[in-house]
């Protein structure tokens, strides 16, 4: 097919498909900066995943149309940008369905705990704190991953 021949697809898809790539990046950033503020959306990120899927469809269909339009430079661009868009689009599903389940099985040590082992550690104010100072009170001990 020669360039300029009746190109397939609506114009916004034909010429604007590359916009899907920044949208995909924005969607990824939006999950970590915006959607995480609501526990329900953080734990069950279906809006983010659905938007991501729509954007990915946009990118794949658009890149396919650009590929069909022929000129090698256009094809190369479509391939590179399409591949990048695909990669970005897959990051969130990978994080949600893969990475976040990377947690070891509970250990026998943890399972066997009936008495909380005492400890003394330094707190965020530089003060030394022990579990034993809280004897006579209920204590919720929260272990968290911390900064990576």
């Amino acid at each position, binding site marked *: 097919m020669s360039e300029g021949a009746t190109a397939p697809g609506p114009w916004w898809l034909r010429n604007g498909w590359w916009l899907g790539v920044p949208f995909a990046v924005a969607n990824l950033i939006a999950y970590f900066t915006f959607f995480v503020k609501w*526990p329900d959306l*953080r*734990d069950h990120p279906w809006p983010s995943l659905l938007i991501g899927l729509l954007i990915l469809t946009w990118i794949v269909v658009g890149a396919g149309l650009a590929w069909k339009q022929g000129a090698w430079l256009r094809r190369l661009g479509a391939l590179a940008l399409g591949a990048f868009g695909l990669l970005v689009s897959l990051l969130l599903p990978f*994080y*949600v369905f893969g*990475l*976040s*389940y*990377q*947690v*070891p099985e*509970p*250990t*026998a*040590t*943890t*399972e066997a*705990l*009936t*008495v*909380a*082992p*005492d*400890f003394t*550690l*330094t*707190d*965020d*104010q*530089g*003060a030394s*704190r022990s*579990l*034993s100072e*809280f*004897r*006579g*009170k*209920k*204590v*919720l*001990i*929260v*272990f*968290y*991953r*911390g*900064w*990576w």
Partner: protein
Amino acid sequence: MQLNLAELRKRGVEVLAISGDSPEESRKMAESAGIEFPLLSDPDLTVVDLYGLRHDGASIDGSSAARPATFLIDEQGAVRWKELTENWRIRLRPERVFEALDDLG
């Protein structure tokens, strides 16, 4: 958890959080997130190991970290309830802690 701190304290529960972060990193996090309970620093993961919670290679740089876990300790120091998530993205819901407290009576 910070949001429910007042409610927890009203029910006689103190909150202690432990991670492998340095006190300096914890201080920054406490300030930026407005956390009012102690963030304890366990850089060698000694206490993390004591509770069997080491997650090898958990960090991006390949070092180990604590797996997320929560323990409810009673007035006598006994472990009365624990929750070990299988998905570290999904954090503990305060309601679960209050349910556990209700069960304790």
